């Protein structure tokens, strides 16, 4: 005799217990500390902070541990926590020109004031697996230069002086930027809202979209004008004080792509800029973001819309991995009712086709 399925509640509890067990793994292996994750998997922490849109290394490390290393799951944990936090206010615009630079390179100029600084990069490592690292060998003490307090001028500032590069948007044009966490997104978007969406967009998705522009789908002739990684000061304006109060420092990666531009009815020929800014050290993401930002400015710059990377609704609506993973994975949820409806329809249509077949046969006989 058939009895409707019950006991879902117990099943869920059991599944959670099993998950906790699998997360811990073999108890003979030492438990992973958050400090270890923060120190030794710091680029994973950076990615969770930037796509989780929450600058907190410790929480990001906790999310990574809780997610068993699944970064999209960890990003989701960070976001779900962030959504409950009150909004106290907005900081002043960050001045990356005053960044305490750890890495700074430009593909446009051989040398420039402040110099090229390689910093901690994978770039020229030979990708040979290192058995010594598996054994836990201690690294040598690195050479570090004296911190230079003087601001390091950005490549965009040099180019801007000659009028060769479009000027950066004037903050006075939009004193209060949009806030995609507080306001519903609606298309077409302003660039400020778009950049926010891109900053927390999925690295893999942006990488592919940016890559597609290099392969001719909305080619924009990009040069890596400058990539810089370092710490910037956050400051907040307090009405009672006549100076901005410092809140602390965060690490960011900034990329300014410089793109050739022929000029249009509205603008003279000059270089245009695609912009990427991401929490932590995330060079690949910031470069991809800059390429996509530039591609999405096609309408503003009067360019033909020919490729997916230029399609704002397509790119922005599909760039958020928390949304994407939720909707793809929701297909696991029961769809009995809809499937039943389709089942009945397919049976009905099959019966109709069969009935027609028989009529044909009768007619033939």
């Amino acid at each position, binding site marked *: 005799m058939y009895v409707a399925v019950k006991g879902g509640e117990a099943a869920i509890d059991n599944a959670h217990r099993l998950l906790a067990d699998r997360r811990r793994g073999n108890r003979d292996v030492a438990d992973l500390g958050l400090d270890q994750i923060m120190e030794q998997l710091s680029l994973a922490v950076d990615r969770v902070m930037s796509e989780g849109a929450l600058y907190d290394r410790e929480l990001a490390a906790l999310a990574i541990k809780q997610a068993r290393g699944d970064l999209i799951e960890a990003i989701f944990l960070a976001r779900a926590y962030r959504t409950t936090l009150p909004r106290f206010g907005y900081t002043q615009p960050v001045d990356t020109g005053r960044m305490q630079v750890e890495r700074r390179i430009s593909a446009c100029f051989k040398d420039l004031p402040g110099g090229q600084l390689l910093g901690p990069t994978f770039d020229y490592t030979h990708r040979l697996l290192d058995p010594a690292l598996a054994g836990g060998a201690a690294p040598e003490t690195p050479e570090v230069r004296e911190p230079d307090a003087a601001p390091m001028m950005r490549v965009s500032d040099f180019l801007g002086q000659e009028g060769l590069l479009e000027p950066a948007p004037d903050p006075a044009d939009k004193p209060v930027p949009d806030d995609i966490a507080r306001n519903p997104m609606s298309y077409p978007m302003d660039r400020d809202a778009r950049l926010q969406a891109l900053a927390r967009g999925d690295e893999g998705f942006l990488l592919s979209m940016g890559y597609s522009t290099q392969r001719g789908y909305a080619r924009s002739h990009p040069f890596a004008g400058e990539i810089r990684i370092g710490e910037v000061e956050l400051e907040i304006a307090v009405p009672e004080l006549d100076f901005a109060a410092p809140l602390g420092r965060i690490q960011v990666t900034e990329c300014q792509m410089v793109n050739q531009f022929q000029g*249009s*009815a*509205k603008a003279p020929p000059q270089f245009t800029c695609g912009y990427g800014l991401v929490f932590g050290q995330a060079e690949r993401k910031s470069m991809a973001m800059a390429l996509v930002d530039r591609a999405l400015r096609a309408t503003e710059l*009067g360019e033909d819309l020919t490729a997916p990377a230029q399609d704002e609704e397509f790119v922005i609506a599909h760039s958020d991995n928390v949304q994407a993973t939720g909707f793809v994975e929701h297909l696991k949820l029961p769809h009995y009712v809809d499937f039943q409806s389709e089942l009945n329809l397919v049976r009905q249509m099959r019966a109709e086709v069969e009935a027609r077949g028989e009529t044909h046969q009768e007619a033939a006989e």
Partner: protein
Amino acid sequence: MQDNDPPLMRVVNLTHMYGDRIGCRDVSFDLYPGEVLAVVGESGSGKTTLLNCVSGRQQCSAGTISYRMRDRRLQDLNAMSEAERRFLMRTDWGFVHQNPADGLRMNVSAGANVGERLMAVGQRHYGRIRETADDWLGRVEIGHDRIDDRPGTFSGGMRQRLQIARNLVTGPRLVFMDEPTGGLDVSVQARLLDLLRGLVDDLGLSAIVVTHDLAVARLLSQRMMVMKDGQVIETGLTDRVLDDPQAPYTQLLVSSILQV
């Protein structure tokens, strides 16, 4: 007819700029009921910009476009709401694109393509919609057995005829055509022009036809405008312009085609 009836459309000093570049400048004309006006010129002459502006598909930079509504009032197109303009476009007007794929829904059947405008204006009887669609397919010489086929299975000429049926099903009074025979073989062109001429006569349609092909203008239109560099350089009855062109550019244009 032209002496008694007031114009259906009146265009005054229409100008459209693309930044510093001229799309078309200071174009004025009246279009009378039942009249076919051909706009000819080489590519870049501004004829397509003109067509897009007067058909409400593009906002012009300056000038006025007025249209005589069915209640006989002359209405300024730019003063209309988007809703009114769109309603006009799907009921009283038609637009035939050079490439039929731009004017058809390629992923639904021929019947649905013709029926869409009827459904858009509120017809809700499947049988009657289908009957009307079937009737129109016949009038544009598409076989009745093709009603459930998608346009993708049609030849270029059939697609163009389907696009015409899709536009005419709501009984519009004015049809805009952008190089309606462009991209078709010469023999197919001739058949389509025949069909168009018949439909225009039967239905008493007004039309503005943009073409670079003087033969199309000769066959379809009573009046023509010659454009160059965004401006009208000659206008008049079609036969007069073609047989006795006044402007040097028109003379060049006429002499450059083989005399038949």
